[in-house]
């Protein structure tokens, strides 16, 4: 038999103005198991709270109903109050007499009747609640950053500067991401490499940062404060302790491979550094193309290596470590426009290039040493067409969203082209020009002054006649058809999430939207957190962004991580799912439905009918479970129940209500 105390609040006249609180109290006294009822002008005030405490001690109350404002307002207050009393903070139910009763009804009689029901429901529920206890979750003071682009590097630096250990996992052979491929950055036209490479070396040299290049996340388990992550470091075939990065091997390697860093516009060797300023500044061997590794013949690099660092026997290495927090900074790639836009030649024409290819073409360290030369015949294009929104804002063919950065970098491309080819003509086909940013619109205006011709409309077809690319399109401002004969066409293609994001996010149970961008916990108020506690987002993995926005978000994610790692332990939410192992059949329907991967099926030994039986049962990870209760509904036997909102307590509430 429980001893329930009911505390009803007047809330000045907020509740008492419409609800006859004393009548409610009178009714409450008649309810079974209620041993004490008190009304108060302001229960949440200091004297009000003191009164509750005293009553609990004096009357030997073991569970509490508060009839006052919404639990969303003061439930934490009451829990805190109960923590100082013998009553467990979770032996509490709040009847919402203000927001959902007195404030929305005018008729005193009706409102009082409803208040009575709400208190009845609360009493019915509280009578069968069980005491719940938080557990302490230790926090491993180490962070993992996935992705070594500008967002990942910035996050790592900020966390490391705060004194915590950080590991960066980078899939490519060097840090730098997309930013280091760019030539200049808008709107200031800083050289991208000049501002990115110092960050790379700062990361590479930071005492608190471990860079795992050419590595990927293999496996994850655990939860906030305790993510156990296995990282696969792909075989580099080079002993980095011996290698000095002299580059002798690269000059002698006979194999030639298309250079992905230069967007396929030049060739590299099979033993290679991604680019000269790579961090780590040491090469790897591309096992797919190395003659020694594929045919067994060659071995030139090991002959020329002065330190004997080459090891053809090298294998992938797996390491497992525990991290307190994880930051996704996995970035983006450009959409593969070729299958989507056959009307642009679908890749048939060599001189129809992407924006990233153009970046390499104008880059002084790129394949043409900064001269704008079209790929097909290495001549200087005298007219260039830039097409924006290729794959963006095009739900029929590509993506419905705006890729955000393209308006600015297409203006930059136009500006750069006109700068390098003063007698050239540049036409930009656009849908809208969106330049909301500091100095952005000024930059766009300058490009117009440079002489770029902006034509509002899409290009419907690109075809070749002679050595000219004919672009047919519409000028929607004059409603006329336009045909431009160009030497080169630059497609400003949409950003899409990096390859493999679906698998990676699934490992961490991070949500993705329909386009596979990672989903933040709240679009406005929790933009860098995810719905899985302890996992944060930085940069374009969350959606298209430019560099300043990525860096901004990286800093925000870092501050969240620092806040978490500063704690020694976390208090878990005790209102989570619990398995009744006697009833659990282990069929795993709950595993399927859990959005957090908090439930697993384990084989356990039981003694049943005087026999030892091993059978599968569900197990809830208290660090991962957030208490949504979706699993409880899938459990036909009712083996899974949600503490604080048990099947029984909800049924009791329904029954209490039906007696009205």
């Amino acid at each position, binding site marked *: 038999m429980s001893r329930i105390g009911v505390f009803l609040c007047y809330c000045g006249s907020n509740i008492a103005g419409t609800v006859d609180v004393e009548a409610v109290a009178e009714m409450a006294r008649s309810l079974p198991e209620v041993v004490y009822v008190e009304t108060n002008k302001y229960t949440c005030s200091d004297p009000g709270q003191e009164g509750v405490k005293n009553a609990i001690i004096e009357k030997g109350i073991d569970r509490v109903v508060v009839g006052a404002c919404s639990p969303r307002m003061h439930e934490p207050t009451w829990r805190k109050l109960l923590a100082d009393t013998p009553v467990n903070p979770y032996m509490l139910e709040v009847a919402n007499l203000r927001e959902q009763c007195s404030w929305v009804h005018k008729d005193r009689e009706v409102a009082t009747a409803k208040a009575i029901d709400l208190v009845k429901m609360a009493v019915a529920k509280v009578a*069968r609640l069980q005491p719940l206890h938080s557990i302490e979750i230790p926090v491993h003071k180490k962070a993992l950053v996935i992705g070594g682009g500008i967002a990942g590097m910035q996050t790592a630096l900020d966390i490391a500067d705060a004194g915590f250990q950080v590991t960066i996992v980078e899939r490519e052979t060097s840090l730098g991401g997309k930013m280091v491929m760019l030539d200049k950055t808008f709107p200031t036209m800083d050289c991208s490499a000049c501002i990115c490479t110092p960050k790379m070396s700062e990361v590479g040299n930071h005492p608190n940062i471990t860079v795992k290049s050419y590595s990927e996340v293999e496996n994850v388990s655990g939860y906030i404060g305790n993510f156990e992550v296995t990282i696969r470091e792909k075989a580099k075939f080079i002993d980095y302790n011996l290698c000095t990065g002299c580059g002798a091997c690269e000059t002698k390697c006979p194999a030639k491979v298309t250079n992905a860093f230069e967007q396929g516009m030049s060739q590299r060797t099979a033993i290679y550094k991604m680019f000269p300023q790579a961090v780590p500044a040491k090469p790897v061997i591309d096992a797919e193309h190395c003659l020694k590794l594929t045919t067994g013949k060659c071995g030139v690099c090991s002959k020329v290596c002065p330190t004997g660092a080459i090891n053809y026997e090298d294998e992938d290495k797996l390491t497992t470590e525990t991290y307190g927090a994880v930051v996704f900074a996995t970035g983006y790639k450009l959409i593969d426009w070729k299958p989507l836009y056959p009307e642009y030649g679908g890749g048939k024409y060599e001189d129809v290039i992407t924006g990233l290819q153009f970046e390499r073409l104008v880059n002084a360290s790129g394949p043409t040493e900064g001269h704008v030369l079209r790929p097909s015949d290495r001549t200087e294009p005298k007219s260039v067409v830039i097409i924006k929104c290729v794959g963006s804002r095009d739900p029929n063919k590509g993506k419905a969203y705006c890729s955000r950065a393209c308006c600015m970098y297409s203006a930059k491309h136009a500006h750069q082209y006109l700068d390098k080819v003063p007698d050239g003509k540049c036409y930009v086909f656009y849908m809208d020009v969106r330049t909301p940013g500091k100095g952005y619109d000024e930059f766009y205006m300058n490009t117009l002054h440079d002489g770029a011709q902006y034509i509002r409309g899409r290009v419907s077809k690109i075809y070749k006649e002679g050595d000219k690319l004919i672009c047919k399109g519409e000028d929607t401002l004059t409603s006329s058809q336009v045909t431009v004969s160009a030497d080169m066409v630059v497609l400003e293609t949409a950003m899409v999430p990096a390859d493999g994001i679906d698998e990676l996010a699934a490992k961490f149970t991070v949500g993705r939207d*329909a386009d596979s961008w990672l989903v933040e916990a709240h679009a406005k108020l929790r933009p860098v957190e995810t719905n899985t506690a302890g996992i944060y987002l930085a940069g374009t993995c969350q959606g298209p962004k430019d560099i300043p926005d990525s860096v901004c978000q990286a800093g925000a994610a870092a501050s969240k991580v620092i806040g978490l790692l500063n704690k020694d332990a976390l208090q878990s939410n005790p209102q989570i799912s619990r398995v009744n192992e*006697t*009833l*659990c*059949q*282990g*069929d*795993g*329907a709950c595993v*399927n*439905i859990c959005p957090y991967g908090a439930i697993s*099926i384990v084989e356990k030994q039981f003694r049943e009918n005087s026999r030892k039986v091993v059978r*599968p049962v569900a197990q809830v990870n208290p660090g991962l479970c957030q208490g949504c209760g979706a699993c409880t509904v*899938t459990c*036909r*036997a*009712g*083996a899974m129940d949600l503490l604080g909102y048990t*099947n*029984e307590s909800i*049924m*009791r509430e329904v*029954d209490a209500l039906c007696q009205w």
Partner: protein
Amino acid sequence: MTAQDTIRARARELLESGEVASFVGWEAGRFANQTTPLIISDPADADKLVFNEYCVNTLAKYVRDLVPRGKVGLVVRGCDSRGIVRLIVDQVIKREDVYLIGVGCPGVIDRKSGEPLKKCTECRHNNPVICDEMAGDEVAKDAPADRFAEVREVELMAQPERSRYFESIYAKCIRCYACRDVCPCCTCRECFVDARRENWVGKQNNVAENRFYGLTRVMHIGDRCIECGECERVCPMDLPLMKLNRKVIQDLNDLFGEFESSMSLDEGPEPLITYDLADREEFM
């Protein structure tokens, strides 16, 4: 060799070699048009096994209680095999717990009427969906009767009529739980109706509690039902239970795409424990 001969021979071999501890099939009943399920563990009993058009019982559920005593051999038709798939997917037994002798089944005959049993005229899978070996050939499938015809019939009734119709069903139900006991989807360690939990489900036999049982039963098995029709066949009050199961199955098919439960061991999650972002939206 007839399928029955093969079954007998193989059952004897399996029991003799010790590969299975028990074997489940049918034996002849008192009358020629009658059979009962038979569980044997002595190879000498193998000749009692029969297989004919009166084998009305579906065997899968018997396996559950036999598995703790060792591997079970059993004869499976389409319905039995889907029951076995269900039990395996629901982790009640493991695949290696059973040895399945498949047999094609053209449908069985109702002993009372001499007509094919209703569940068989609607059957879409005459041959086993899994088995270790086949006794005899697969049978060709006749076009089955429209399994949703009875659902549509009810849907065409006016609302008050439907309400009275189901009320009459619930009033007639005696809560014997035969439908549950025979169902291969009902494998909870403790059924919710047996649970002694306050406010969970009442034990009274009245329309309200019977409705609670009936509706909950359908929600529990709807997306896993193998449509063997046994619940309806065993009901001593002859309640048309498949009208409820099939309603859910029909809606699942209509709303979330073609789906038949328990057709293979590696099929994806059932429709109610998964979702699609593009699901129909009716609740805006």
